[in-house]
């Protein structure tokens, strides 16, 4: 078995070499590991590697095929890369280019105030929308000069993490 995993901007190949009971030999990229691994409950593993003991939580994230992995000292966000996620990734990257033109909510929250309406011309740095979460208000500003193309939310709406708030069409692009 072979699996591609992504962690901290690194794409690593984990390849199984041999298995005997709990003893698993595998290669992470070019490095070979022989570990004693047991699953102690639904989300926790105990790994012994050269005598060192690692107690590791591997928890499914809300995002598909993402895992939050906690060791004693570090936290990792690890993604399983398969054909489906490769496709998603390439799609996301092409989206990323447009990021300056769109504002997405970085957390769940509530729309408190919208300063602009569709068709408005906005300057870079102009406040567009105010979000409130947990008693803290955050103001979001235009990243460039442009025309407000879309505002798919209204004041009072509750928004999810990463939800689209405002789309601006770059005037220079025209």
């Amino acid at each position, binding site marked *: *078995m072979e*699996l591609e*995993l992504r*962690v*901290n901007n*690194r794409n*690593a190949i*984990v390849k*199984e070499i041999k298995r005997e009971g709990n003893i*698993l030999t*595998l290669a*992470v990229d070019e*490095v070979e*590991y022989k*570990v004693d*691994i047991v*699953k102690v409950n639904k*989300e926790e*593993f105990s*790994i012994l*590697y050269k005598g060192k003991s*690692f107690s*590791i*939580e*591997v*928890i*499914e*994230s*809300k995002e598909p095929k993402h*895992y*939050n*992995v*906690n*060791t*004693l*000292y*570090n*936290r*990792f966000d*690890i993604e*399983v890369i398969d054909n489906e996620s490769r496709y998603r990734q390439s799609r996301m990257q092409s989206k990323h280019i447009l990021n300056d033109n769109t504002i997405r909510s*970085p*957390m*769940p*929250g*509530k729309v408190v105030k919208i300063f602009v309406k569709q068709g408005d011309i906005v300057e870079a740095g102009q406040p567009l929308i105010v979000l*409130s*979460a*947990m*008693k*803290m208000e*955050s103001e979001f500003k235009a990243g460039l000069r442009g025309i407000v193309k879309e505002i798919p939310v209204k004041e009072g709406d*509750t928004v999810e*993490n990463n939800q689209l708030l405002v789309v601006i069409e770059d005037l220079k692009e025209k």
Partner: protein
Amino acid sequence: MEQKPIKKVLVANRGEIAIRIMRSCREMGIETVAVFSDADRTAMHVRYSNEAYNIGAAPSSESYLNIDKIIATAKSSGADAIHPGYGFLSENAAFARRCREEGLQFIGPSPESIEMMGDKISARKKMIAAGVPVVPGTTEKVTNEAEAIKYIKEIGVPVMIKASAGGGGKGMRLVKKESQIASSLRAARSEAKTAFGDDALYIEKYVDSPHHIEFQILSDRYGNTVHLFERECSVQRRHQKVVEETPSPIITPEIRSRMGAYAVAAANAANYEGAGTIEFIMDEQLNFYFLEMNTRLQVEHPITERVVGVDLVKEQIRIAEGNKLPFTQDDLKQSGHAIECRIYAEDTDNNFMPNPGTITHITEPYGFGIRCDGYVYEGYTIPIYYDSLISKLIVWGRTRDAAIERMRRALYEYKITGVKTTIRFLERIMDTPDFRKGEYNTHFIEKNSASLLAEGIYDKKNEDIALIATYAQYMSRIEESKKTNAATTEKKETNWKRQLRKFTSRI
């Protein structure tokens, strides 16, 4: 001595403080009534209480601040007292007065004391009269700009302009140069007007690099007041406390006893009843000045409980029942050292943006000298409407060093997955030399922000081990879902299936 035992307490709050209050009630054999908003049906305080009632929509203005609804719930449930916790209605004199009018025991001071200490200017006056040192500044509300400019020039910059009705850093402006006076005055006044509906200001000499040190007091209704020593609260981020400890690493026994005596005098001047806190600011030369009084329980009360050995919530309730304080000042001693770390659901890599969401996993620390006052649980979704404080980790050690060592160990053990938290940030505070040495003031976080917010150094070996565990988890998950498939091949009648789906999507 008029005593009236309390049998059922309505806790007009949510989150960790509601649970903390209910635990003491349960120990005392007192029943508890929870109130909750639409966003809090699954919250821990609803689950922990004996009774629970919905009091309105998610925004706190429509629920936790809805005086009429809370009073009505207290009466219909047969509660004889209300504990306000901190925040929400805890320092609302009108609420305390309503309780009194309705024959409900408010567990806290009288409305008159709340009013007197709630208004910064009247509090300042009262303290000056009681001989408690205050920061040099105006004793009357300032509404006239010319007057204000004249006064500031008299006492000299730097000064702090504050809203008389204020709190939480709103309507506050620091003036460092004379040229800023006029614009700062205007800005402060406009903010004060918006935030509190009152543009009265007052002006204080600004204390540079101050320490924030507060004293816990307890007063009964028979004029007895004790203090339970200090809490050092100088680790702050944007006027929000982050780490507190007691004893303060900087004050001397002589200063401690002077400050304690002033704290008692302040409480007596306010004709106080219950638990309260006298906040002082202290400059580099250890000069200290009364800042304000918090007429309620503080978030950081557990460090005092640990070092002095007094359950403050139980004492609040006993005082409200009309009992005398069970101890005198001489009975109270500080023993060892306690530290509290506040754990917020915030993204420290993203300007401490609040990070509500669903807790997917939680591992809490245990062992000697550890206390963890939280309220979130596995599967719980933290709502977007309220405070981002999710837990308080309190440790005790025989010495300050032992307490820091223990806090580091407890933070290592503490794991919350599903939302971003400040746990790693707190670990770094424990590792910062200024904190270790006890040499810090309210500028600590600003001063050390580079190292506190630096990118994590990942150990490559740990990263590979994490990848191996993820590989194993992925493989085992695939297998599990296959097993489930194999196990559930029973055929069910279609209509019945649909009914079930309807039902379970609701519960």
